[in-house]
């Protein structure tokens, strides 16, 4: 194993930083070149260490070699700052397998902070991605963004201020997101078109929507089998500052956990509260404002086999961020009333109904004490609103836990 440390330069950078704190950011060109050259020449087994310090970069970094580890001195100590970035759509773009990155931070990237495309065995540990100006529409889209990856562990990460999702796992397989924190993003944690994900022991707070499990049309893989459990999802009421046209743009402020068009989703043992619109939303692609013209054949826009049980719901549903829902709350529950904890838009695949009911294995099942669910009947213009739980009092076979070697290894430590 080769360990490359960028030490000499780091010291001079630190010195410079201490000497003239007020000056505008000057790119550390030599550091940037040296680090990128290391990434280009990296071979399997290499560990690239970046010592403590704040480094100013103006173009994106990229890694193509598999088997490489990038390591900082801590996510508050080693900071790659991209303020004023001139080129590149991300901070670091990784197209490699057996990749580990830990203990460092990406700040103020123009686009996504850390994007990993198409690799296997990815570990992202104690990495912070942050837009330091706070939530803003000009911020980059994603903080931590593995896409089309397999066997992914995101552990102890912190994502702040993304104009789309703080932690966004797209089109991947076999994923664990845990012990992480997402705040002040449009979406805190989003699992999209992913097969097999466990999302647990995370905190999502101060986002527009806390934890999202979505399926988008026209992609190579439809997602299913995600478990969201033992998370703290609290007070995600931030005004939606995402861009129209993006999947998260339709998420109303004040959404705790949102399932959209995804299947086989289990939500259990979470603390979910303080959400103005609803603590939990189950919805279809049709509720995002697109028509059939926008979906290729074969796309399934209906959330099916959804199992919600044993969550602890706090207050919520008292001031929905959606005109129809606002009116509905007042007409159904009075001026000071609130919507039930679980809100369902009411879209079902009529082709699959048997005697007017979804087959048991496709149902939305709720076994959550006194928590209620409201079907707002969006397909019929909110006409036949129902809080009848009878067809949702059911259970589904539980999903298996994700088997991930890297997650097990980390468990004991």
């Amino acid at each position, binding site marked *: 194993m080769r360990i490359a440390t960028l030490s000499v330069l780091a010291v001079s950078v630190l010195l410079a930083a201490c000497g003239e704190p007020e000056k505008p950011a000057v790119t550390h060109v030599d550091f*940037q*070149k*040296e680090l*990128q*050259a290391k*990434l*280009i*020449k990296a071979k399997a087994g290499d560990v690239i260490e970046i010592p403590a310090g704040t480094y100013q970069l*103006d*173009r*994106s970094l*990229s*890694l*193509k070699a598999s088997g490489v580890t990038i390591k900082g001195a801590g996510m508050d100590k080693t900071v790659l700052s991209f303020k004023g*970035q*001139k*080129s*590149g*759509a991300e901070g670091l*773009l990784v*197209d490699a397998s057996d990749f580990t990155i830990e203990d460092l931070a990406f700040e103020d*990237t*123009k*686009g*996504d902070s850390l994007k990993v*495309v*198409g690799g296997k065995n990815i570990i992202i540990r104690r990495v912070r991605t942050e837009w330091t100006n706070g939530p803003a*529409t*000009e911020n*980059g*889209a*994603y903080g931590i*963004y593995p*896409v*089309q990856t397999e066997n992914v562990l995101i552990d102890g990460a912190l994502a702040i201020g993304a*104009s*789309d999702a703080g932690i*966004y796992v*797209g*089109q991947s397989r076999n994923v664990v997101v845990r012990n992480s924190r997402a705040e002040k993003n449009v979406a805190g944690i989003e699992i999209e078109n992913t097969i097999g994900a466990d999302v647990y022991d995370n905190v999502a707070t101060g986002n527009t929507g806390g934890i999202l499990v979505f399926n*988008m*049309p*026209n*992609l*190579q893989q439809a997602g299913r089998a995600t478990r969201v459990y033992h998370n703290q999802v609290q007070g995600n009421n931030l005004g939606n500052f995402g*861009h*129209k*046209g*993006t*999947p998260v743009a339709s998420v109303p402020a004040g959404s705790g956990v949102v399932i959209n068009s995804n299947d086989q989703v289990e939500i259990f043992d979470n603390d979910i509260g303080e959400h103005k619109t609803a603590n939990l939303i189950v919805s279809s692609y049709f509720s995002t*404002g*697109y*028509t059939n*013209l*926008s*979906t*290729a054949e074969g796309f399934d826009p209906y959330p099916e086999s959804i199992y919600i049980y044993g969550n602890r719901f706090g207050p919520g549903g008292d001031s929905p961020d959606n005109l129809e829902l606002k009116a509905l709350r007042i007409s159904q529950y009075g001026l000071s009333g609130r919507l039930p904890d679980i809100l369902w838009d009411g879209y079902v695949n009529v082709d699959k109904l048997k005697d007017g009911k979804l087959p048991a294995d496709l149902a939305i099942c709720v076994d959550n004490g006194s928590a209620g669910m409201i079907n707002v009947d969006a397909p019929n213009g909110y006409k036949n609103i129902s809080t009848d739980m009878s067809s949702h009092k059911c259970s589904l076979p539980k999903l298996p836990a994700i088997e991930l070697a890297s997650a097990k290894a980390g468990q004991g430590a």
Partner: protein
Amino acid sequence: MKRWGVLVGALLLAACSKQSAPLYLPEGENYPQTLSEWGMLKLGGGHLQPVAEVTPYDLNTPLFTDYAHKMRTVWMPAGEAANYGEEHFDFPVGTVLSKTFYYPRDEKGQLRLNSQDDRDANTGLALDRVHLVETRILLKQKSGWVALPYVWDEKQQEAHLELAGDSQSLSLLDDQGKALAVNYEVPDANQCAGCHEESHGQGINPLGPKARHLNKDLVYSEGSANQLQHWQQKGLLKGLPAELAGVPQNALWGHPRPGESLEMQARSYLDANCAHCHNPKGPARTSGLMLNLATATGIHSGLCKQPVAAGKGSGDRLVDIHPGKPDESVLIYRVESTDPSVMMPELGRSAVHHEGVDVLTRWIASLDGGC
């Protein structure tokens, strides 16, 4: 003693005229630090031109790079040839492709923005009328293709290998007297793969020397000829169909041939500028937007398609291509942008290609239907 003398003399001569033979490097990572060591281009007599064994080539619709002009060359080891394929040619080990990026320069030394052809078939580029920025090399080795960026020095005497790339602030003056500031980025060696790894996991591949791009005439010192036939005659290409009519051909950029419709011009542009990423196996496959020729016009090529992970790249527009409405199409928003997190292509330019945007805009405006 005598023999030594002769050798030294020969070496000296070679060094003076910078005219070593083209470098054959079938394996190993000992890549030359300077461009001259490759022996592909010769610099002398106030000109930069391919050496005798090296063939220049050109493309029907090329990639846009901040209005830089480009001189492309191909060299194959003596006696070796590429095998024709409708989609890809199979090049022999040792093949070297080069692309030199430069700007025309006026008599005052000012860099110009224009589309003139500066290349003379006999003398190449006149150094007092061009500013050389970089030369990119693709080398085919036994283990696959390698991409290497060389950056020209200020004296315009030599280009040096810069694996980590480079950036330069340039100002281009157009014929109306307007200046365009360009923040020219030489990609780093990983970013080369960001475009040249057209199929994930297949490694780097050449993008330009394909039948449909090369199928055009070029002026050689011997006169004008179709490039594919010229390659065949020189023994650089085997298996070319006897009838050129059966060989695909993209639209000729800026000067469409009779019958090359607006749609074909737009598709040729997307092919050269986007399809190496936007194909089912390319770096932009995660977006589900396929801009390669094999994808028929429809939802997968962007019609009424919602962007997937565009973030602010959506520009608050709802679909990639809204037929009839370029102003409501994400695609146009992104080619009009220079914000690195929005613009498309996401690498390789800092300026807007107005002529490209114009063709794409007119094409989308011409499409029927709604979303």
